[in-house]
């Protein structure tokens, strides 16, 4: 018989299966401007399908105030390195 922790894991994994791309919740915060699945919207850049290293480098540059922008510097300074990596990997994996 399965022990509870394993059981919990099994349930979680199964429940997660139908949507292959499980965005970290931090990435959900991007969609309000960058569009569903980060596909871009009007004058706002698309994120989906871009290189993860490039996306992470852009976010770090915004955070360091080394890249001009309207609001992204203010947002990027609220992210941790781990969140930047997870969000970049998530959008890079989308097409």
């Amino acid at each position, binding site marked *: 018989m399965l022990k509870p922790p394993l059981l919990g894991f099994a349930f979680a994994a199964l429940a997660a299966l139908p949507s292959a791309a499980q965005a970290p919740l931090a990435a959900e915060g991007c969609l309000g401007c960058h569009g569903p699945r980060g596909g871009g919207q*009007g*004058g*706002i850049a698309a994120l989906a399908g871009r290189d993860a290293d490039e996306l992470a480098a852009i976010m770090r540059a915004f955070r360091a105030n080394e890249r001009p922008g309207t609001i992204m510097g203010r947002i990027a300074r609220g992210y941790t390195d781990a969140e930047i990596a997870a969000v970049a990997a998530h959008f890079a994996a989308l097409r």
Partner: protein
Amino acid sequence: MTTLPRRAVLAAAGALALPAIARAQGAARLVVVGGGFGGASAASFARRRFPWLDVTLVEPQRAFVTCPYGNLVLAGERRIEQITHSYEGLRARGVRVVHDRALAVDPAARTVRLAGGDTLSYDRVILSPGIALRWGAIQGYDEAAAARMPHAWLPGDGTQTRTLRRMLEEMPDGGVVGIAIPDNPFRCPPGPYERISMIAHYLKRHKPRSKILALDAKEGFSKQPLFQDGWRALYGEMIEWVPASRDGKVTRVDPAGMVLETEFGTRHRVAVANVIPPQRAADIAAPFAAANGWVDVDPTTFEARLAPGVHVVGDANNGAPMPKSGYVANSTAKQAVASAAALLRGEAPPEPVYFNTCYSHVGQDYAISVVGVFRVGPRGIAEVPGAGGVSPRGDLPEQRRLEALHADSWYDSITRDMFA
């Protein structure tokens, strides 16, 4: 939908006495009350992220008119149809949309009673009912008065916004538009000041001798220096803003005489009156509200302190220091759904990070913004130090132009996230 072999479910449920898990694998029932920024976001996200959830959305209106961009309707820059959204996209995602009014939640029985007579059972409920206006908080300001002095702060079917727009169109050049603004907290902190801007934008082009008299119940407001810079640059002397200390607080109205009366007895007769009254959590959430009228919630799961299992998102909760904004409603709704899903599976809720971006249009090709990133710390929700903040001040036409463009894109993006 993913299903676990039935025997395994029964064995697990029996062995561990966790019936919630068994339901989760069949179809855990999530009921969402309110189809606005919080509710539509919750319902859409729940279906997208947790397809094993059976999602019902209860919303009396057949279509949703957004508060954001309502001020551009007042300016004549948008038609109300352009800010009206149907629920068909949510239906296509598999959300059961019930057009009825939720009357009461029973947290013990886990049911929601509807005006039409039905009762919905739930495993988790998310309330995002928005605000109610405190009729009578300003003496003489009741629903009848609102027909003559529109608030245009609950969009409903758009009638209030259309009424205020028509009054502005019918006003002769040289008239005074009076705007009464409440004390904090209220829905959309920069909203009244974007409204002042957009009405000025309209008047400047069509009725340039007119004035705006903004009577405020407080001493300062969201993005104040940026708004006031813009007002001076774009509208000269058209706008007069009066803080509470200079007798700005409207305490009584006379709709027949079109008079706004302030705390110290000054009577301002105006041609058009827009009265934004004090507010509280909408009725369905009122039983869970604190004495101040707003619902205190757990900062991670957004469950009401007074009713575990009942998640309250959007403007109805006391989310301070986060503002009552559409973006916060969207962001916290996703966290509430993820928390509800985790709790249904016997897991810990995810660690939250909340976002806010509020754009305000000040004039043509001229917008400003406030941004916030929030996390949960030892004393509850707190803004991440060093992040967020408002647009820079100064003569920055390219920044203002881009923010106006991005504001439009924000509107399209977030409404697609909710309704597409």
